[in-house]
């Protein structure tokens, strides 16, 4: 995606990002060379299971990695400026104004001792230098925009007085207060019920169009990805294994992990009588990663060459894949079809 001619169309370009955690003289590579770009005005989803590094990727973009974690390499170009070269003051100006973030659990990211209004106003006071009265006025406007009924009353309430869905709306109001160019949403609907989730996803979509915003959506829910994203990056053990437009990911996935993930999801719109296809084994601990392809020990197609780490290759459709099967070096079954194999054993 990052060819010279299209570089300016990308609001965000992450290049070879590496974030590690150092514990007991051991390095845990949580994000291990992640490269992707986010076209302006679009939504890119990062999916993966727990421990895949998807949340650490998003926190790294915001430069919110704390000790013992550290960003040890790579570039994060936001509007063609490298965020890793900014100092803390510059970053503080960017956060909340140009890039905002919403998290899974609004109760832990809202301050319980301040009213909703005080927390939204804060963004206006810090980033736009507004006075109290103006900030309050704008905050009410913002609450109205995110669909909170009687905002004049709600603005003086505390987070605990609101329901889960309402709190997430307040979070979105704070995040979007200064019309950021980029919204990073880390599992924004995971803690919500499906009917509320539908409301919130609809709201994010609507505001994205209204405010011409780009969205980076981090989630483990493949359904949410299919419905909201334009492009999808699938992560496994700190690396992107596949990056493609949303249709390709769901209709013609290439990586055996993506295929396995989609197959193991019980469908809600049809019945299957036999056992669910599974991916055998468990996600390896980030401290004991396989040295070749990270997925090889669980992959039904793994061959000799998979003991060496494959590169992320770009195909003719600008989609990216990290798998030996699609290379000239592939030494396994030349007729291999990743969609044919279905393991249904339960152990």
């Amino acid at each position: 995606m990052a060819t010279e001619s299209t570089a300016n169309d990308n609001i965000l370009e992450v290049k070879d990002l590496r974030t590690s955690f150092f514990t007991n003289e051991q390095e845990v590579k949580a994000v291990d060379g992640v490269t992707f770009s986010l076209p302006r005005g679009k939504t890119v989803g990062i999916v993966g299971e727990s421990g895949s590094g998807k949340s650490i990727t998003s926190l790294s973009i915001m430069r919110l990695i704390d000790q013992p974690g550290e960003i040890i390499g790579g570039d994060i170009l936001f509007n063609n400026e490298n965020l890793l070269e900014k100092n803390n003051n510059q970053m503080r100006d960017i956060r909340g104004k140009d890039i905002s973030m919403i998290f899974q659990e609004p109760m832990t990211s809202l301050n319980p001792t301040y009213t909703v209004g005080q927390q939204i106003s804060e963004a206006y006071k810090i980033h736009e230098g507004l006075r109290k009265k103006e900030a309050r006025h704008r905050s009410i406007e913002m609450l109205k925009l995110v669909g909170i009924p009687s905002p004049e009353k709600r603005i003086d309430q505390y987070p605990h007085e609101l329901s889960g869905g309402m709190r997430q709306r307040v979070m979105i109001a704070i995040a979007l207060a200064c019309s950021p160019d980029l919204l990073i949403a880390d599992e924004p609907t995971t803690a919500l019920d499906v009917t509320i989730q539908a409301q919130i996803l609809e709201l994010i979509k609507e505001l994205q169009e209204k405010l011409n915003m780009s969205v980076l959506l981090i989630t483990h829910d493949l359904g949410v990805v299919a419905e909201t994203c334009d492009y999808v990056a699938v992560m496994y053990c700190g690396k992107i294994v596949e990056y493609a437009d949303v249709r390709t990911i769901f209709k013609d996935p290439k990586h055996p992990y993506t295929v396995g993930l989609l197959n193991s999801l019980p469908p809600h719109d049809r019945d299957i009588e036999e056992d669910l296809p599974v991916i055998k084994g468990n996600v390896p601990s980030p401290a004991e990663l396989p040295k070749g392809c990270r997925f090889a020990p669980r992959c039904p197609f793994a061959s000799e060459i998979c003991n060496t780490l494959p590169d992320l290759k770009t195909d003719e459709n600008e989609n990216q894949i990290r798998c030996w099967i699609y290379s000239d070096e592939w030494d396994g079954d030349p007729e291999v079809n990743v969609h044919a194999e279905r393991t249904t054993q339960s152990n």
Partner: protein
Amino acid sequence: MPKELLKVTNLKQHFPIKGGFLGRTINHVKAVDGVSFTIHEGETVSIVGESGCGKSTTGRAILRLDEPTGGEVKFDGKNLLSFSKREMRQNRKDMQVIFQDPYASLNPRQTVRQILNEAMEIQKVVPKKDRNDRILELMETVGLGAHQIDRFPHEFSGGQRQRVGIARALSVNPQLIICDEAVSALDVSIQAQVINLLKKLQRELNLTYLFISHDLGVVRHISDRVIVMYLGKIVEIADKKSLFTNPQHPYTKSLLSAIPNTDPDAKRERIILSGDVPSPIDPPTGCRFHTRCPFATEKCVTDVPELRNEDYMKEGHQTACHYIEEIESGLMQPTR
């Protein structure tokens, strides 16, 4: 027809709210308010609904983990609510529960061997000399290795811990297992493994499951029949196929339409409900869904709808709505 294993009649669970002067009871949370259903031997019945609908409370009340306020629970013909604490404990060996978070429900200071041993000791199901063999057998049944027998819960991954929870439930040879969000905390690839394991165990041991979940995909895969709850009441009950392909209650319809679809080309006719679930402390009068229902009328505000079956619906499919025929035939259109 297999026998009725569990029969729940008009189950109520009202939690008191203390407060005010001298901490008197000032109100009640009507978490479960008159729920009736039966489960047959070897069947999987699921309860679905959003947070606060009372699905977990129903499960806990059946096992008397929380003492229900009213109603009747019959297990294998025995009235559970008439038992003393001691009798209840003896009978619990027939009905086990698997919780969502195995880390919170397994003692972190006990090894797997101790956990399984304790369960068998309390229920006296296996003589001491045979216990080691039985523990090994259980480990194999749930897909864990014999070498993991002396490990502590923290040494396992989430999926493996849930297998330990399943092994503990199986250790006392239960007939009924209540699975309270048993696979919700697991990653999809691991979730599929555990679902397959639960289905395999059911086939081999003729287990009966009450499966409590908010994940409709999982529910469709594992259930025979499905109960939909909203604010402490059952709004719809049907066999799986009928419920997913021909939902009758407006709430069930919107719930099913809200599930994100993994097919990017799928046509979506999403019914987005307005507002949030009202508080169970002061639930709406009449039909509890009327504050959010797109079809609600005056009658829905005053009259409580009963579960009923109409001729065009499949046998056993029941819905608690005044206007199922009118909505089905298109006579009534959504007003909001």
